[in-house]
């Protein structure tokens, strides 16, 4: 390491620092959006897997088995290539010939979200199964309707029980966003590739990227753990 490599990752006129920080922000946003989509899909998936109708359970199991069994990169590729083909087809049917494509951010976030949804399904499902049955019966006995019961008794406790697993899933979502660099989204890894191509310093820039990922993971992990501790207080007693 000499001073010149420090200026390269710094914030000066020759530095890539600002671009790297912006790219890291985009990584964080992409991870948040994917995680949110995964949350919606995970809730739906858990509802399917816990349903009393066999066909719905089967659909839920199919979703989690397939999406957890194939590499994430294949899902990203499938949406990247297949997504724009489907869109072109759809636009042709609607009477708009020509070439269309979705932004790689949208494609990537949906693909990563779909995978994380499969993992979140398992997190919510096992958290729901840990609920105290007696509380649900007590709620019914008090005359709570299904939505009230869900809102007041089931959802808060399920979320609390799922939190440690959700923390792990968040960390892997954050790391999986690196795959979006392959489909051209200029997030942290892509920006580092561009920088190392321009300066011929791959070790420096990929090392910086690794440190930034580590930092983001540690900071968010710290946040999640403190929330966990806070919400866990009522179980400690």
């Amino acid at each position, binding site marked *: 390491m000499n001073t010149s490599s420090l200026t390269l990752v710094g914030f000066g006129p020759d530095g890539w620092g600002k671009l790297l920080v912006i790219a890291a922000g985009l990584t964080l946003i992409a991870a948040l959006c994917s995680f949110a989509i995964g949350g919606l899909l995970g809730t739906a998936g858990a509802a399917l897997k816990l349903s009393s109708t066999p066909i719905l359970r089967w659909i839920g199991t199919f979703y989690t*088995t*397939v999406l957890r*069994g*194939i*590499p*994430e*990169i*294949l899902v990203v*590729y*499938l949406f990247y*290539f*297949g997504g724009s*083909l489907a869109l072109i087809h759809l636009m042709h049917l609607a009477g708009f010939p020509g070439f269309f494509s979705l932004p790689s951010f949208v494609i990537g976030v949906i693909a990563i979200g779909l995978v994380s949804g499969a993992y979140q399904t398992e997190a919510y499902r096992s958290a729901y199964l840990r609920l105290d049955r007696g509380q649900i019966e007590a709620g019914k006995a008090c005359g709570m309707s299904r939505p009230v019961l869900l809102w007041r008794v089931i959802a808060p406790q399920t979320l609390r029980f799922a939190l440690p697993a959700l923390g792990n899933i968040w*960390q892997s979502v954050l*790391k*999986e*966003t*690196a*795959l979006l*660099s*392959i489909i051209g989204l200029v997030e942290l*890894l892509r920006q*580092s*590739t561009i920088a*190392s191509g321009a300066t011929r*310093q*791959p*070790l420096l820039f*990929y*090392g910086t*990227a*690794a440190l930034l*990922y*580590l930092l983001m*993971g*540690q900071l968010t992990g710290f946040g999640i753990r403190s929330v966990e501790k806070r919400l866990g207080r009522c179980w400690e007693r």
Partner: protein
Amino acid sequence: MDWPFLARTAGELLTGVPLTLQLTGIALCAGFVLAASVAALAHNRLAPLRWLARLYVGLFQGTPLLVQIFIIYYGFGQIEYLRSSFLWPFLAQAYWCAILALSLNTSAYGAEIIRGAIAAVPRNEIEAAQAMGMSGFLLRRRIIWPQALRYGLANYGNEAILLLKATSLASVITLMDVTGIAYRLVSKTYRSEEIFTIAGMIYLSLTFVIVGCVHMLERWLLPRNRV
């Protein structure tokens, strides 16, 4: 359905299976040896060695595998010392870079699994064995390792599945595994749905094979679990 095309595609994709399995198998074995060493460090009496183990696990678990692959494949070439060393003929090849990255990455997760499995061995059983006069290697071989195996095997099976999926990233540094071949076929024919679906089915069946192997291993190693 264009059956001839599907059959041809499946045939071509299957030629990538040996490489995918090779990457998985070698990284799994090398990763296990590394993981066991790191887990041993994590149990060491010396605090700095314990910190070292924690740092190792944190570094590899906290960064994307793709970044690790890029650091090894593109970054290591920058280090003059490495370029002139005997390791360079290996590190100049994408294949060995992928294996190195995958082994290091899986070893960090494996170390946590092994550490957890050993910590799960009941304290009183170890004390009982010590009271019988067992210590050192005998204690480990007779009491600790067999029990830890029972606790850790299922988790290590999951790690093997994650590793199988992770080998697909080797295609990014030009290796022609199942994913690499799929990508090449798609850029030639633009029939992404069919090709990626078949590739996904291949990975899914390999996953089931691993699950089956772990079940068989469990039955073979843990006779008391047989029903």
